[in-house]
């Protein structure tokens, strides 16, 4: 058998195992319960939580984009380590609170909570729309990663379109049938697999291309002393942009609806213990950066279309001819893309069913709402697939602007939980204006003030609006008592 066939076999084997785990996770559970589909009946154990949350940081971005950043931007890539460790810290405070509130009032989405707290259906629909707009490009990137990996590692014998369709199809089927439990248990398997692959590759490339870590970094420093620093003449990123990237990620990480709603899947204690192990997951990302650094001076600059292609280039040019190795690497990279895809498609389907359809048609029965969610998995997958195949790069870049919108949810969530005076009007205006300011500095203005992250400027404006509008409006006794149920919750 030739190498690409062995590689294809290994990747297929991985797909079959992931598929089987995803499908069987939902067996013996109620097929007709929204609570089961959306939040696993609030009963996830610690082990699943670790890998569920850990798996989401290992997306196709971490596997393909991480080495690309290290290769092309040097020290700027340390941002990935910093944000992965800091991103989950706020969850220690808000997660347990959300878990208790969610259990008491039967929430399954962020819209459920904010809509209840601020008594506004309009707010729920905005959140639903912002979530979907952010989810779809995120999923599109994963699909592009999956198609690319299949195509490169089978030496063009499996087409990009077919590879992407195969991997996405499997995700769609197990998410639609097993719900969050399917996504969770397949993530356990996928997270372990990609960790192993990342470490093997990181160590292998450093050793075989440079002999040792010290050698590798010495050569990089000799060649360009500022490449491994931030904000200097030869650095690839300014100090303000680096810092504001981290701050935005720390505020926004838990605001991603698919992560936020995981507060509802487990207990307060398990949330705290999940936050505890998160820094360890960040350290696991280290070899991903080593892969990118090892390519410096080895991969010629003009060999790559985009920096994200650096790992596939290394694999096809500097790994042995062994088909089994290709297959293992392919499986690890697919695992990274798929473990994010399942969480995203699931999150998008729940948002669509609960935050949009249920609000517009309040008479929907549980059964109908659940079917809408299951069908939405297919719908969201199909839309993202079409964008991945037919969309231009410009279209995707435009949609990625929705990323900056996610962090705009933070002022609403925090003020809802900790500030009784926060008013509905303030939160809604803050959210809408915050999103618009972000979009302005992202696409329309030539540059942002001090080179800050556009999302940070948006969020500062957002906070100011929530603050001043809430202060200006006098809350009546009834609203105050209502807010107290959330703020004073113990």
């Amino acid at each position: 058998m030739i190498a690409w066939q062995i590689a294809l076999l290994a990747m297929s084997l991985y797909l079959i195992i992931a598929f089987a785990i995803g499908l069987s996770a939902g067996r013996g559970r109620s097929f007709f319960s929204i609570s089961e589909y959306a939040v696993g009946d609030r009963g996830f154990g610690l082990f699943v939580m670790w890998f569920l949350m850990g798996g989401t940081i290992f997306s196709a971005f971490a596997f393909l984009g991480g080495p690309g950043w290290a290769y092309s931007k040097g020290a700027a890539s340390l941002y990935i380590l910093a944000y992965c460790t800091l991103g989950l810290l706020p969850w220690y405070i808000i997660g347990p609170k959300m878990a208790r509130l969610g259990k008491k009032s039967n929430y399954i989405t962020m819209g459920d909570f904010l809509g209840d707290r601020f008594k506004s259906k309009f707010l729920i629909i905005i959140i639903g729309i912002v979530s979907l707009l952010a989810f779809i490009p995120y999923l599109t990137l994963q699909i592009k990663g999956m198609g690319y990996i299949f195509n490169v590692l089978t030496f063009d014998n499996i087409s990009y379109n077919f590879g992407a369709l195969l991997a996405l199809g499997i995700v769609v089927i197990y998410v639609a049938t097993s719900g969050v439990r399917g996504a969770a248990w397949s993530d356990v398997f996928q997270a372990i697999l990609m960790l192993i692959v990342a470490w093997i590759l990181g160590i292998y490339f450093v050793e075989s291309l440079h002999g040792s870590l010290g050698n590798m970094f010495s050569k990089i420093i000799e060649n360009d002393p500022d490449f491994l620093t931030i904000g200097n003449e030869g650095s690839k990123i300014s100090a303000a942009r680096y810092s504001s990237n981290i701050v935005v990620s720390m505020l926004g990480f838990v605001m991603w609806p698919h992560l936020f709603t995981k507060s509802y899947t487990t207990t307060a204690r398990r949330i705290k213990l999940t936050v505890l192990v998160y820094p360890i997951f960040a350290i696991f990302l280290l070899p991903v950066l080593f892969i990118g650094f090892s390519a410096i001076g080895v991969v010629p600059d003009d060999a790559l279309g985009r920096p994200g292609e650096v790992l596939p280039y290394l694999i096809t040019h500097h790994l042995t001819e062994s088909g089994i190795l290709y297959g293992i690497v392919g499986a690890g990279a697919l695992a990274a893309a798929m473990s994010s895809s399942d969480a995203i498609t699931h999150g998008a389907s729940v948002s669509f069913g609960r935050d949009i359809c249920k609000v517009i048609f309040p008479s929907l029965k549980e059964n109908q709402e659940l079917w809408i969610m299951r069908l939405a998995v297919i719908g969201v997958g199909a839309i993202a697939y079409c964008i991945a195949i037919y969309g231009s790069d410009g279209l995707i870049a435009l949609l990625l602007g929705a990323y900056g919108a996610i962090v705009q949810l933070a002022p609403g969530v925090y003020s809802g939980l900790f500030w009784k005076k926060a008013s509905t009007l303030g939160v809604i205006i803050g959210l809408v204006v915050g999103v618009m300011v972000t979009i302005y500095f992202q696409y329309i203005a030539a540059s942002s003030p001090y080179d800050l992250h556009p999302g940070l400027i948006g969020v500062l404006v957002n906070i100011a609006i929530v603050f001043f509008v809430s202060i200006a409006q006098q809350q009546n006794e009834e609203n105050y008592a209502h807010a107290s149920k959330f703020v004073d919750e113990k």
Partner: protein
Amino acid sequence: MNIIPKLNIKLLYVIFTLFILSMLIFPVFSIANYAEPLIFGMPFIMVWVLFWIFIEFLGLIFFVKIDKNIED
């Protein structure tokens, strides 16, 4: 450990979180903004980030230990 009231634990946690954040962003980060010396073969700036990740992990262990609210 019951001497520390619950509210203070939360406040301590927030302060701790902001402290770790401040170590990893500018202006404090500028004291680590050097490629050399190499430590364990890694640039100084990278080791600095890893060091604070490690401290954060230790800190979280401390918080989980003293948090009497951790049992459901």
